[in-house]
C-alpha cells in the first residue's frame, strides 16, 4: 500500500516527459474537452443508452487512470473493461461472457504444442458454434453471443499468430485487456485490433498527444455518426423510388455514404482506447478520397486489411514466392478476397447465429478482388505516385489526382450499390431509369433533396471523413525535438465540440426554419430510417427475407432475436392454396406456443366454432384483417376480437340483440387485396356487419401484393384490378423493382377498387361496412398513407372508426411482443379491445341499427 501511494505521489508530481506522464494544466484541457464530448454524446444520443453509461464509466476512469503509476494502469484498464461488460450485460451474462473468455484465453497458454492448442480452440469453438446455432443448449442468454463473437472471433486468430512469432513476455493484464477491451461490450461491430500494435504502441509517445488524438478521433466519430443519420434518415431511397437519373445519383451516393456509420463507430472506439494510452493507428483514412481500388482497400477499414495481410497474405506469399513473384502476388490476393468473403459470413454467423450466403456478397468480393489484382499488377510494373511532401506536387499531378479520385468514387458508389442491393435483378433494374421517358419519370420522382442540397451533403460527407485536428494526419507522434503545438488543436477541437453541443440544444435549433429544426431534431436520436421502418413493417406482414447483411441498421434489431424465436411465418399455422388468396389458416390446427394456445376452427378461423347461419336475434360481425386481428402473440380468448365479443355480450345488454357474435377472419400476412376473397368466405356466414381492420400502408401494400401476383403469374379475378395492371404496364417478365416502380403510383386506385368492391358487396346484402383503423404500436412513416386511405374508405361508404393515437400514452415495451416483433401482446390487445368498444358505442346507431340482410 505504501509502495502504491509513493508511486502515485511520484506520478502526480511527474511531468509530460516521463512515460505516461502529463502536467496538470494539460490534463485539465483534456478533461474539459471530454466534458463537452459527453454532453454532445448525450445531446445526440450517440448509439444507445448503454454506450452513454459506458462513456461515463470510461471518462470517469480516465480521470483516475491518467494519474496512476504506469505499472498499475493496465490492471486498472482491465478492471474498467470488466466493469463495462457487467454494466452493459448484467452480472449473470457478464460472468458467463468473462468465464467463456477466460477459458479460451487459457487454452492459448496451455503448456502444449501450438498445433494442440489450435486443435483445442477449434474443438471449443465448434461446441460454442453449435450452441450459437441453438443445436446445443446453453445456460446463458443469447444476448451475449454477438459481443462474445466480436471479442474472440478474429482476435483469437491474431493472438495465436503473435504468440507463435512473438518473444515478448506474457502479461496477464495486457492479454485480458486485449480481449475484454473496454468499449467492446457495446459494439458487436468492432475493429480487428492487432495484438502486437496494442502491445507496442502503449504509451509510446507523449501522453498529451495520445489523449488529444483520442479526443479528436472521438469527435470525428461523433460527427460522422451525426452526418450518417442525416443521410440515413433523409437521403436514402428505396430502389422502387428511383425514377430519374437524379434519383439514381441520390440513391448511389446515399447508399455509399452509409458506410460513415462503420467509420464513425470505429473512430469512437479507437479514440476511446487512446484515453488509456493505446496509441492504435487509424481505422479509416480519408476513405472517400481514394484514388484507386487498391487505395480504397488501404484506406477503408485499415485494421481488416492489416489483419488479412498479416495472417494470410504475407505467409502465403512467402510460401509460394519461389514460383514467381507475380504468381505469388495474384494467388495471395485471390486468397485474401476469398477469405474476406468467407470470414464475412463467419462474422455474420457469430453475430446473428445464421448462415449467410447471398450471391451479391460473393460477386462483390470477387469483383473487388479482380480489380485489386489488376491494380496491383499495374502498380508492381509501373509503380504509383508517392510523395514525402504533398505541397511539392505539380498542378498536373493534382488535377490527375482529382480526376482519379472522382472516377474511383463513382465506381465505388456503383460497386457498393451492387453489394448492398436486395437482389441482382433489382440492382440491374435501377439502371433502366437512365433510358426512361424523362418527363414521365420526373412526375413520379420524389427526391428528398434538390441537387444543391445533394452537393452540400456530399461535401459534408467528405468533410466528415477528415474532421479533426491532430488525428486528421493519422496518428504519427511529433518527432523528437519538434515543438508540440498544444493550444491550436485543443482550441479547434473544443470549438467544434461546443458547436456540436449547441446544435443539439432545442432552444437553438428551434430558431431555424421548421424544416431545418425538424431535421436537426431527427438527428438527435437513433432510430430506424423510413426505408428500414418500412422493411420492418413488411416483416410484420410477410416474411422478411432481405435483412441478411450489414446493409442497414435493421440487422442490429434482429440480432437480438433468439434463433428459436418462432415468428408468425414459421409457426406453420398457414398453408398455401392455389389462386389469388395464396394462403389460409389450416382448419382445425391447434398448437401451444410460447404466447399461448392457438386454435383454428373447422372453417379456418382463429375462433370458436359457429353455426354457418346465425340465430335470428344475433348480431353477427365478420372481422377481416391480418396478424393483429388473428391475434399472433396472444393465446386463444386473448385476442381483441374475443375480448370485444365478450364485453359486448356482457355490457351491451339493453339492445335488440340477444347476442353478439364476432367471427375472426383475420389471417396473418394478409394484404388488403387478399381481403376480397376473405370477404367472400365471410359472407357465407351471413354477417350483419363487416369490420375491416386496416393497419397502415394500405396503398403500398396493395400495390406490392398486386405486383407480386402478376410476377408470379397468378390470375387476378377482379376486372377493375386487371385494368389498373394494364394501365401501369407491368408484365410477368419484369423484375420486382421495376414492377413496383410502375405500380406504386396507382396505389390509391388499387385501394379504391378494393374498398369499393368490399363496400359494394356489403351494400348489396344490407350489411354495414365498418373500417376500423388500427395504428401500429409506434409512430412512423407508415402514417403517411393513413389520411388518404381513410378518405378513400369514407368516400366508398364505410363507417370509419379511427383509433389513431390509442398507443400514444403507452410505453411501447409494455404492449409489444419484443423489440424485433412489434405485434401487440396481451396488454396491447386489451387496449385495442377497449378502444374499439368505446368507438362502437360512440357510433352505436350507425353500426348496430337492424339492417338484417
Amino acid at each position: 500500500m505504501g509502495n502504491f501511494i509513493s508511486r502515485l505521489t511520484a506520478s502526480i508530481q511527474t511531468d509530460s516527459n516521463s512515460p505516461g506522464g502529463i502536467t496538470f494544466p494539460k490534463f485539465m484541457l483534456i478533461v474539459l474537452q471530454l466534458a463537452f464530448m459527453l454532453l454532445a454524446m448525450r445531446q445526440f444520443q450517440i448509439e444507445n443508452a448503454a454506450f452513454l453509461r459506458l462513456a461515463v464509466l470510461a471518462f470517469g476512469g480516465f480521470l483516475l487512470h491518467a494519474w496512476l503509476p504506469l505499472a498499475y494502469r493496465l490492471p486498472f484498464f482491465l478492471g474498467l473493461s470488466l466493469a463495462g461488460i457487467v454494466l452493459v450485460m448484467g452480472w449473470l451474462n457478464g460472468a458467463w461472457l468473462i468465464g467463456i473468455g477466460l477459458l479460451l484465453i487459457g487454452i492459448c497458454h496451455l503448456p502444449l504444442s501450438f498445433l494442440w492448442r489450435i486443435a483445442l480452440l477449434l474443438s471449443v469453438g465448434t461446441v460454442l458454434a453449435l450452441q450459437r446455432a441453438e443445436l446445443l443448449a446453453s445456460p446463458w442468454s443469447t444476448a451475449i453471443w454477438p459481443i462474445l463473437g466480436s471479442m474472440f472471433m478474429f482476435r483469437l486468430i491474431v493472438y495465436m499468430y503473435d504468440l507463435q512469432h512473438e518473444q515478448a513476455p506474457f502479461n496477464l493484464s495486457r492479454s485480458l485487456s486485449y480481449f475484454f477491451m473496454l468499449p467492446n461490450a457495446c459494439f458487436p461491430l468492432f475493429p480487428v485490433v492487432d495484438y502486437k500494435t496494442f502491445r507496442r504502441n502503449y504509451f509510446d509517445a507523449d501522453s498529451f498527444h495520445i489523449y488529444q488524438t483520442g479526443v479528436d478521433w472521438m469527435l470525428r466519430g461523433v460527427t460522422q455518426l451525426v452526418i450518417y443519420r442525416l443521410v440515413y434518415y433523409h437521403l436514402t431511397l428505396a430502389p422502387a423510388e428511383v425514377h430519374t437519373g437524379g434519383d439514381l445519383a441520390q440513391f448511389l451516393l446515399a447508399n455509399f455514404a452509409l458506410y460513415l456509420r462503420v467509420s464513425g463507430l470505429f473512430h469512437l472506439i479507437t479514440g476511446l482506447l487512446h484515453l488509456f494510452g493505446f496509441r492504435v493507428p487509424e481505422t479509416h483514412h480519408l476513405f472517400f478520397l481514394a484514388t484507386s481500388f487498391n487505395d480504397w482497400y488501404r484506406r477503408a477499414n485499415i485494421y481488416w486489411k492489416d489483419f488479412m495481410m498479416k495472417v494470410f497474405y504475407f505467409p502465403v506469399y512467402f510460401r509460394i514466392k519461389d514460383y514467381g513473384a507475380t504468381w505469388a502476388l495474384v494467388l495471395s490476393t485471390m486468397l485474401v478476397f476469398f477469405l474476406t468473403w468467407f470470414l464475412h459470413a463467419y462474422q455474420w454467423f457469430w453475430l446473428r447465429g445464421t448462415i449467410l450466403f447471398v450471391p451479391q456478397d460473393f460477386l462483390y468480393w470477387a469483383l473487388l478482388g479482380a480489380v485489386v489484382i489488376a491494380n496491383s499488377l499495374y502498380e508492381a510494373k509501373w509503380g504509383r505516385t508517392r510523395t514525402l511532401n504533398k505541397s511539392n506536387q505539380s498542378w498536373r499531378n493534382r488535377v490527375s489526382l482529382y480526376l482519379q479520385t472522382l472516377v474511383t468514387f463513382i465506381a465505388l458508389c456503383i460497386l457498393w450499390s451492387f453489394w448492398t442491393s436486395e437482389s441482382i435483378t433489382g440492382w440491374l433494374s435501377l439502371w433502366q431509369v437512365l433510358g426512361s421517358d424523362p418527363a414521365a419519370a420526373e412526375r413520379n420522382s420524389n427526391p428528398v433533396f434538390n441537387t444543391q442540397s445533394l452537393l452540400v451533403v456530399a461535401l459534408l460527407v467528405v468533410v466528415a471523413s477528415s474532421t479533426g485536428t491532430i488525428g486528421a494526419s493519422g496518428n504519427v507522434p511529433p518527432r523528437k525535438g519538434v515543438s508540440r503545438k498544444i493550444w491550436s488543436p485543443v482550441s479547434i477541437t473544443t470549438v467544434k465540440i461546443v458547436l456540436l453541443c449547441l446544435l443539439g440544444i432545442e432552444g437553438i435549433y428551434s430558431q431555424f426554419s421548421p424544416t431545418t429544426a425538424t431535421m436537426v431534431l431527427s438527428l438527435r436520436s437513433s432510430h430506424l430510417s423510413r426505408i428500414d421502418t418500412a422493411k420492418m413493417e413488411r416483416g410484420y406482414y410477410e416474411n422478411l427475407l432481405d435483412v441478411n447483411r450489414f446493409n442497414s441498421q435493421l440487422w442490429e434489431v434482429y440480432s437480438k432475436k433468439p434463433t428459436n424465436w418462432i415468428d408468425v411465418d414459421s409457426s406453420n399455422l398457414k398453408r398455401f392454396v392455389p389462386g389469388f388468396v395464396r394462403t389460409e389458416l389450416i382448419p382445425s390446427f391447434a398448437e401451444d406456443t410460447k404466447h399461448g394456445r392457438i386454435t383454428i376452427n373447422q372453417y379456418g378461423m382463429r375462433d370458436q366454432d359457429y353455426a354457418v347461419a346465425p340465430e335470428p336475434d344475433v348480431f353477427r360481425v365478420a372481422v377481416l384483417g391480418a396478424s393483429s386481428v388473428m391475434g399472433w402473440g396472444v393465446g386463444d380468448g386473448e385476442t381483441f376480437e374475443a375480448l370485444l365479443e365478450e364485453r359486448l355480450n356482457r355490457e351491451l345488454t339493453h339492445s335488440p340483440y340477444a347476442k353478439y357474435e364476432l367471427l375472426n377472419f383475420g389471417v396473418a400476412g394478409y394484404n388488403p387485396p387478399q381481403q376480397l376473397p376473405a370477404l367472400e368466405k365471410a359472407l357465407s356466414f351471413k354477417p350483419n356487419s363487416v369490420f375491416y381492420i386496416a393497419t397502415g400502408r394500405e396503398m403500398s401494400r396493395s400495390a406490392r401484393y398486386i405486383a407480386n401476383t402478376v410476377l408470379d403469374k397468378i390470375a387476378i379475378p377482379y376486372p377493375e384490378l386487371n385494368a389498373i395492371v394494364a394501365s401501369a404496364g407491368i408484365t410477368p417478365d419484369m423484375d420486382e423493382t421495376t414492377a413496383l416502380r410502375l405500380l406504386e403510383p396507382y396505389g390509391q386506385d388499387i385501394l379504391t377498387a378494393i374498398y369499393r368492391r368490399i363496400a359494394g358487396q356489403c351494400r348489396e346484402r344490407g350489411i354495414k361496412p365498418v373500417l376500423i383503423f388500427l395504428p401500429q404500436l409506434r409512430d412512423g412513416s407508415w402514417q403517411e398513407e393513413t389520411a388518404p386511405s381513410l378518405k378513400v374508405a369514407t368516400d366508398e361508404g364505410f363507417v370509419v372508426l379511427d383509433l389513431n393515437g390509442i398507443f400514444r400514452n403507452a410505453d411501447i415495451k409494455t404492449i409489444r411482443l419484443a423489440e424485433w416483433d412489434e405485434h401487440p401482446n396481451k396488454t396491447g390487445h386489451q387496449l385495442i379491445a377497449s378502444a374499439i368498444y368505446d368507438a362502437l358505442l360512440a357510433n352505436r346507431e350507425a353500426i348496430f341499427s337492424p339492417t338484417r340482410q
Partner: protein
Amino acid sequence: MTQDTIAIVKEFVLREFLPGENPDELTDDTPLITGGILDSIATLRLVAFLEEKFGVKFKAHETDSEHLDTLADISALIQTKLG
C-alpha cells in the same frame, strides 16, 4: 556498417518509390509503412531487394511496421540477420 546499410536502402527507396523527391526529406526515422510510403506491394519489392542485396532471408511475420517502418529499423533487422 549501419550507415552503409541505411544509405543502400535509402537509395533504393528513393529510386523505386519516391523518384524526384528531395533525399534530405527522407530521414532515418521517416515512417515508411505507417506513413503510407510502403504499401504491401512496395514492401514485398523492398524485401526482395534486401534479400538479394544482403543475402538474407525474411520471414512473413517480419514484413510489418515493427521491423520495416523506418530506414533505421530496416538496417537494424539486416544487421541482426547478418549476425
